[in-house]
């Protein structure tokens, strides 16, 4: 009956209750949409990095991550490849030669990371083949072809069919160089990556650097990105101390830290929204208590304990919070599904977004953490907000409450 009484009390003043519930709904919608947008952006940053060149797991000779030395190559890639191939959760992998060098055209030159890749393997591991905006992707593992970004092509003033010269140190300390013909121009969501990365066939890279048959990296895609840690740990155990098997968490610590920070930030933002809601609830419940002082006095007179009166007021606030949360979730997720699932076009901010490794279209992503926070924090906040009015109510003396006009 306490629940029934609380429910009916809420609807005594429909307009006020609907306004309070409405404010909870708006708060919940705002939280959902903001979280979805930020979460989408962060995930896009992460997955862009994973899909560009980071992949889920990388295997190198020990120390290569910190020092990309040409000499730090995997000398027996076949042995490592067999272990990777037989590792559960590994979906795709690609062998890479990686070095830092200079790329020159007749007009200009630029320091770049030169990636020697097996084009067919790389297709499954990175999105470079899908990011070609002009020309074509690399055809074979050999040949003197190069794909570079639109930004770099502009800087070097080259286009499809033009020749560029690649130069880099060889293990012996001499300079290895070769001429490559531009066959493709790509553009990704990351302007930083675009400015500094070029792709050539792996055999050509090995020849130019004089490291035949050697590679620097296995880039691995796992069946689920959540399995990256499992795979990296298993591979590390099997490969031993001479190698490093790293998940994207270890390769992109800053981005992972940013994601963690974002999660904490989300809690703070949710708490700020909750704080705003608290005042709405306090206000509404105080009014509800003041309107019913006489009635509360009668409840005391007929023997209702203070704890029950206190509970009744908290239940009223809880119902308001729960209703607001339910409808807020329905509307918030509905808006997200109906209006935002196709992505939010932020092309006006494309340049600045691209420097963060995010594309111009953000795909909002609802997080489970936020859902859990909403369904716990908002009703809890409603109850906390009602505590002061409830305390006011139970401090009343029955006789003065009954006489209250």
């Amino acid at each position: 009956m306490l629940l029934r009484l609380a429910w009916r009390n809420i609807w005594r003043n429909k307009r006020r209750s609907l306004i309070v519930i409405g404010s909870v709904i708006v708060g919940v919608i705002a939280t959902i949409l903001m979280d979805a947008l930020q979460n989408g952006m962060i995930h896009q940053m992460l997955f862009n990095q994973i899909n560009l060149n980071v992949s889920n797991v990388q295997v190198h000779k020990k120390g290569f991550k910190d020092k990309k030395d040409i000499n730090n190559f995997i000398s027996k890639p076949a042995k490592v490849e067999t272990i990777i191939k037989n590792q559960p959760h590994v979906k795709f992998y690609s062998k890479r030669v990686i070095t830092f060098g200079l790329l020159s055209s007749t007009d200009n030159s630029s320091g770049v990371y030169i990636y020697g890749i097996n084009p067919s393997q790389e297709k499954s591991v990175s999105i470079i083949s899908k990011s070609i905006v002009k020309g074509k992707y690399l055809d074979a593992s050999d040949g003197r072809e190069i794909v570079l970004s639109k930004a770099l092509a502009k800087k070097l003033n080259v286009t499809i069919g033009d020749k560029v010269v690649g130069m880099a140190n060889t293990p012996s300390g001499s300079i290895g160089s070769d001429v490559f013909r531009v066959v493709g121009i790509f553009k990704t969501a990351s302007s930083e990556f675009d400015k500094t990365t070029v792709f050539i066939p792996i055999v050509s890279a090995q020849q130019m650097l004089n490291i035949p048959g050697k590679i620097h990296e296995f880039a691995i895609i796992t069946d689920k990105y959540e399995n990256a840690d499992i795979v990296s740990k298993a591979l590390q155990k099997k490969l031993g101390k001479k190698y490093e098997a790293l998940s994207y968490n270890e390769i992109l610590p800053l981005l992972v830290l940013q994601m963690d920070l974002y999660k904490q930030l989300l809690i703070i933002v949710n708490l700020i929204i909750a704080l705003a809601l608290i005042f709405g609830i306090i206000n509404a419940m105080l009014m509800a208590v003041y309107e019913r002082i006489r009635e509360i006095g009668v409840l005391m007179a007929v023997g209702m304990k203070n704890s029950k009166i206190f509970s009744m007021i908290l239940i009223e606030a809880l119902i308001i919070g729960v209703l607001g949360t339910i409808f807020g979730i329905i509307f918030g997720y509905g808006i997200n599904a109906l209006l935002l699932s196709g992505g939010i076009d932020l092309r006006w901010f494309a340049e600045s977004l691209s420097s963060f490794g995010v594309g111009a279209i953000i795909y909002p992503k609802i997080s489970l953490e936020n859902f859990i926070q909403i369904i716990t924090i908002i009703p809890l906040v409603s109850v906390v907000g009602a505590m002061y009015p409830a305390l006011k109510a139970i401090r009343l003396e029955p006789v003065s409450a009954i006489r209250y006009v």
Partner: protein
Amino acid sequence: MEIIKCENLQKIYQDNGVPVHALKGINLTINKGEFTVIAGPSGSGKTTLLNLLGALDKPTEGTVYFNGEVLYKKKRRELSRLRLENFGFVFQAYNLIPVLTALENIEFSMMLLGIPEKERREKAITLMEELGIAELANKRPNEMSGGQQQRVAVVRAIVNDPDVVFADEPTANLDSKTGDNLLNLMQEMNEKKQITFIFSSHDKQVMERAKRLLILKDGLLEKDN
């Protein structure tokens, strides 16, 4: 058998910082089964005395005993329990809970006692039928007349079989016929169930029914008939 006793009962209110002596030292004993009316002009202290005897207010001086126990030594929780189990209240303005139906208002006190829903419903319906207000069961207070509301309030007051029912000007807002019916009802309860009734009233109709009439004047007990 003595049920309520008060000794040197005094109550001073502060009215904008000015002390007002509402009761100036009342000594009184009420026995079980009495049908007592506290009468007197406005401002004589009737309602104050009733509130003090009913544990709704605290005296400035003096003591109230219920069944030999000092009322105001009890904690708030214990006083709530006492009001729930041993006392019933009927107010001048009926004071039914507006969001509950008549049946639910009557059931409410039983719910507070933890009586199971089926049992309390049966008891409430039986009582309503006995007192001829069964047709009001599903009506909310705003759908009932004053007399009907007050009858429901009386049933609410007696539903937990209290020892004492305190009625503060119960007929003040009713016409004489309705008031008379209500008093019949209370008198019946008094006789049938030996429930002690203490009224505060200056209504002649009520005073005529009193088995014992206490007259208050300026905060003092002037007559005890």
